[in-house]
């Protein structure tokens, strides 16, 4: 069948299988051909694409919950949405919540996802108590930060290339309300956005939405959103109303004029400052989940999300350079997301590092690829790197400069025979 990631580009013709038990998975593993695991297909590019793909969604059982410490053990195909549905009413939430809840636990660990609280609480791997990994020879090993630490550090953020993540024991965070206290600060330009982000480092959740079309004086004008879990209140979540994009919109729907208009309205929507507004938790964390299939907004050819992180000292200059170049190109990124990040962890291919990350959406056009190559150079010049979960076009050479631990990762793959069993289109392109 034809398969794409969330960006709907690229598309591959894949032979697909699915499994619900370890026995079924082991039989599939024994076949000579290599494969990659595919969960909800929410990585944007080709991380979960290959000629042979194993769907993990049926491998989705919750196996244990230790109420005393808030540790849930589940199979890797369970989604974050399911965990929230089951455990939010009992007073537990994800320690780290990425921008969508429609990802599997296995996918979240494989991409070592982060959330709006990265500067306080790190990546999801820091909430993983242990995980069981199926190796190429059919052995299952339990790994955590101290047991088989090398495998753990390679698997968290390892994009599914070190084996099949089976069961994950995940620590949840206790909460006392299904609402958030949200503060919104309007920042007229990039300097203000950085200044306000720094001034509110102590806020647990922090993210800024940038109007990417604003130029000159207004370059980087944005809304900084801060959040804290609200004081004790009802735990029953209010299910957000959803809207579905029923088909691919014509490619011209999102053009300079329509985006400008949207962004201007979006920017002016809130009053100058919103202080401690009570917001339903799912609306705060997953605003885009309310628009099902929003990836169809970008038309038939699809889109990509370009997300990079820069070290703290070069962040401002680098982000300004990228925004300027993107705005000049007229290729119309919709909104950008800017967020400060906390210290890096020890995982070999984990994305975050201390500094700032910026994510920009681009519709796929022929003119886009040269622009992204140019942006890569700016990112490299400022000592940054790209997020593999969103990538579909990075070259092996650039990747290696961004992720110096690539060699260690590749050697480990060779040593365990992983390189012969687990491959995606991305892993072949990046040469790991």
């Amino acid at each position, binding site marked *: 069948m034809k398969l794409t990631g969330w960006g709907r580009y690229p598309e591959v013709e894949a032979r697909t299988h699915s499994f619900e038990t370890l026995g079924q998975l082991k039989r599939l593993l024994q076949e000579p051909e290599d494969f990659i695991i595919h969960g909800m297909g929410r990585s944007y590019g080709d991380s979960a694409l290959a000629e042979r793909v194993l769907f993990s969604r*049926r491998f*989705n*059982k*919750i196996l244990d919950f230790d109420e005393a410490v808030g540790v849930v053990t589940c*199979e890797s195909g369970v989604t974050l949405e399911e965990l929230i549905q089951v455990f939010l009413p009992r007073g537990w939430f994800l320690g780290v919540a990425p921008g969508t809840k429609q990802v599997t636990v296995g996918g979240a660990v494989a991409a070592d996802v982060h959330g709006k609280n990265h500067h306080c609480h790190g990546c999801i791997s820091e909430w993983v108590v242990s995980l069981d990994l199926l190796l190429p020879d059919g052995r299952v090993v339990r790994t955590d930060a101290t047991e088989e630490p090398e495998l753990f550090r390679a698997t968290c953020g390892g994009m599914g290339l070190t084996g099949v993540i089976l069961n994950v024991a995940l620590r949840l965070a206790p909460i006392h309300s299904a609402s958030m206290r949200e503060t919104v600060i309007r920042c007229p330009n990039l300097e203000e956005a950085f200044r306000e982000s720094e001034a509110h480092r102590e806020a647990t959740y922090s993210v800024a939405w940038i109007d990417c079309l604003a130029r000159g004086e207004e370059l980087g004008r944005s809304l900084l959103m801060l959040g804290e879990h609200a004081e004790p209140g009802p735990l029953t979540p209010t299910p957000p109303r959803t809207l579905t994009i029923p088909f691919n919109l014509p490619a011209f729907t999102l053009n300079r004029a329509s985006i400008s208009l949207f962004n201007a309205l979006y920017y002016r929507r809130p009053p100058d400052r919103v202080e401690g507004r009570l917001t339903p938790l799912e609306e705060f964390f997953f605003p885009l989940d309310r628009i099902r299939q929003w990836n169809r907004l970008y038309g038939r050819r699809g889109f990509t999300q370009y997300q990079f992180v820069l070290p703290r000292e070069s962040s401002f200059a680098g982000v300004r350079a990228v925004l300027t170049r993107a705005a000049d190109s007229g290729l119309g990124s919709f909104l950008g997301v800017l967020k400060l990040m906390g210290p890096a962890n020890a995982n070999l291919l984990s994305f975050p590092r201390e500094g700032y990350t910026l994510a920009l959406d681009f519709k796929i056009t022929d003119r886009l690829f040269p622009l992204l190559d140019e942006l890569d150079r700016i990112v490299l010049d400022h000592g940054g790197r790209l997020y593999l979960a969103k990538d579909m076009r990075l070259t092996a050479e650039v990747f290696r400069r961004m992720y110096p631990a690539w060699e260690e990762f590749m050697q480990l793959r060779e040593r365990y025979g992983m390189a012969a069993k687990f491959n995606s289109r991305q892993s072949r392109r990046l040469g790991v």
Partner: protein
Amino acid sequence: MYLLVLGANSDTAHALAARFAQEERAHLYLASRDRELLEKRARDLALRHQVEVRPLVFDATDYASHAAFYAGLDPKPDGVALAFGYLGDQQEAQQNFGEAKKIIDVNFTGAVSILEIVAADFARRNHGFIIALSSVAGERGRQSNYIYGAAKGALTTYLSGLRHRLCPHQVRVMTVLPGFMATKMTEHLKLPGPLTASPEEAAGHIFRAYKKGRDVVYIKPLWRWIMMLIRNLPEFVFKRTKL
């Protein structure tokens, strides 16, 4: 409420069990053959819905075991959902009677064997309901799967008789007629999207029909009209089709 789910490893049964656990706070007996999967699913449903779930090994074609299996249930169920089935391979079944017999045994004989035991208990207690999954394939024999169709047709007829018999006992029998289903049984087939239901969708339909007290329900209403057409095509036209 205690619900006995026979063939609990089928995707539709699993989704239906989850629905009853969520909406009716039903405790579950999950019965099937594959113990590994069954125990996992039982634990999962218990954790998600905070109900009691007991996994039980049950083989539809081991008729001799059925009485003891049902006698072992304590408390006795308030409802039974019968969802086991075997699609089989029509080509294979034409050449090899073993395959044909297996299709008939699982889909029909096994169902009669266990449901007679259930019916006796429900009739005595004047209490209970039965939801059984048959198939639209049972409404008219077609060259592409008439052995499966015949077994399901027999099941549909059986269920209508059982409904008739149990009506005075206030025991309801609901016949469910799914069309195309996107489940592991049909994973390898190409199915037309608009006519195909997911297990969760099907479970929702079945549950709502159960609440309304319906007797016969199609999954996806369009199937009622399609089957009306197929049933009523004159034989001299029908036999020339490729259905």
